[in-house]
């Protein structure tokens, strides 16, 4: 799966808003926020096949440096 860019010129604004949402939270609170956010975004996507593909992609181990 290759995910093309859907954010266009709004990428930086949206990323910044995500960081801002986490500001001042403890790590546990941030985890909880992320969980709620993922569930809401899943509801936005809605298509089970699409969600299954995204889950599979997200499980691929990162080659983190």
């Amino acid at each position: 799966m290759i995910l093309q860019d859907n954010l266009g010129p709004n990428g930086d604004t949206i990323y910044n808003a995500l960081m801002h949402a986490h500001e001042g939270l403890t790590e546990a609170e941030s985890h909880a926020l992320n969980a709620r956010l993922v569930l809401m975004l899943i509801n936005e996507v809605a298509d089970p096949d699409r969600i299954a593909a995204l889950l599979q992609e997200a499980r691929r181990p990162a080659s983190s440096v």
Partner: protein
Amino acid sequence: MAYDYTPFPYVAPPGLTEPEARHPVVIVGAGPIGLAMAIDLAQHGVRSVVLDDNNVVSVGSRAICWAKRTLEIFDRLGVGDRMLAKGVTWKVGRLFHGDKPVYSFDLLPEEGHKYPAFINLQQYYVEQYLVERAQELPELIDLRFLNKVTGHTDKGDHVLIDVETPDGTYQLEADYYIAAEGAGSPTRKRMNLPFEGQTFEEHFLIVDVEMQKSPFESDSPERWFWFAPPFHHGQSALLHKQPDNIYRIDLQLGPDTDPKAEATEEKVIPRIKAIVGDTPFRLDWMSVYKFRCAKLDRFVHNRVLFVGDSAHVVSPFGARGGNGGIQDADNLGWKLAAVLSGDAPATLLDSYNEERSHGSAENILNSSRATNFMTPKSPIEALFRNAVLDLAETHPFARKLINSGRLSQPCSLHGKALQTGEHPMVGQSLIDAPVGDGWLVEQAQGAFTLLSLGADAAPDVEGIRPLHIAEPSPELSRRYGTGHYLIRPDGHICARFDSADREHITAALARAKGQAR
């Protein structure tokens, strides 16, 4: 070879022996912005005195990345070709995560522009060339080195200025006082003006080294940026080429660093060797710095005007400091000249504040976002940042989120008071294209210009220079289509018309000069 810092001569100013007549403009600071300001004013026929407490160009390369728009302004000021000839041209930025290339961007993927996306040129060369250009205009520009401003008082209809020289002190009067003194602006401090914004805790080490062998794999220099490079664990690094085989290396050091200890040869040389290996190099200049993003609330305070870093500061990632400052001078020059000649009301200067305050806010927004991405300030920010870098190996959407600096672009002035109409090109700075044997930027800047494309010429309107191009080049057609574009002296489009109606053009010109009520 190291740059030869030749001091500029100090000449005892006339004010030491007898009072000088009031000057139209005094500019404080002979850096790139103050000098550009003086040249711009001179080209509009306005005399100025430039005062600087020093007598050499910038020590150290400092601002090195000069954007296409700045070069187009330099072209108008008579120094663009010289800067381009000396500078290192580049347009590709390459991003690495560890030692893997993850993404590259081309800042100017098309032909048909006089100037490239960027040149790298040390600030000392930029200042030298601007000083030499200013010296070609001795009737209009009075450069005074080792003249330190120690005080100023706004008297309502003029500004009284206290100046200190090696031979003693004197006073000057000016109709307008322009502060172009850099980030530490003594003028701003004397006036006790709030200068607020975001301070970043990270230290960065900036090093210039001279090397004969290029570290780049190809012949064309690029901007290389690493997240977590193998040679600098867990931090970020930036590499640029400058003229004279000098390379700029910028290393993130983290917040808990002793800047004095870091800026020493024994600490720096091993860091450079980790990057360049056995390649012989000479250490040319180094500096450890922190930065903040901040701006003045207002750039215009009656007869005192702020330009460049005196008015706003940004982080260096995105090259928005020096380039933003040149755009200040570009915006203010023609307006101040019009006010001084009586061609426009003094309130036109409010539009300088409106337009450049907007531009600098945009620069601050972009540069602080880049810095936030580079320097995650909590574990969760680091987690997301690393997730973006991981996903970027496979997914184009994530590559677009990697932020190592969004490089300087001129802001649009769309919707601001001087512009007329809703056409999307209105407010933008002109896009260059070939015109005859030359370029649009050579013909459409410096005076109000009506660019008419296609069969219809425009009627003559007083105060507007017509530029009718019946058979435009393919690039000009592609970028502008047909119609009539009113272009301000600073190269921003302030109105566009399908058909050339004298009344509409006259009204747009009046509005652009701040004459409309």
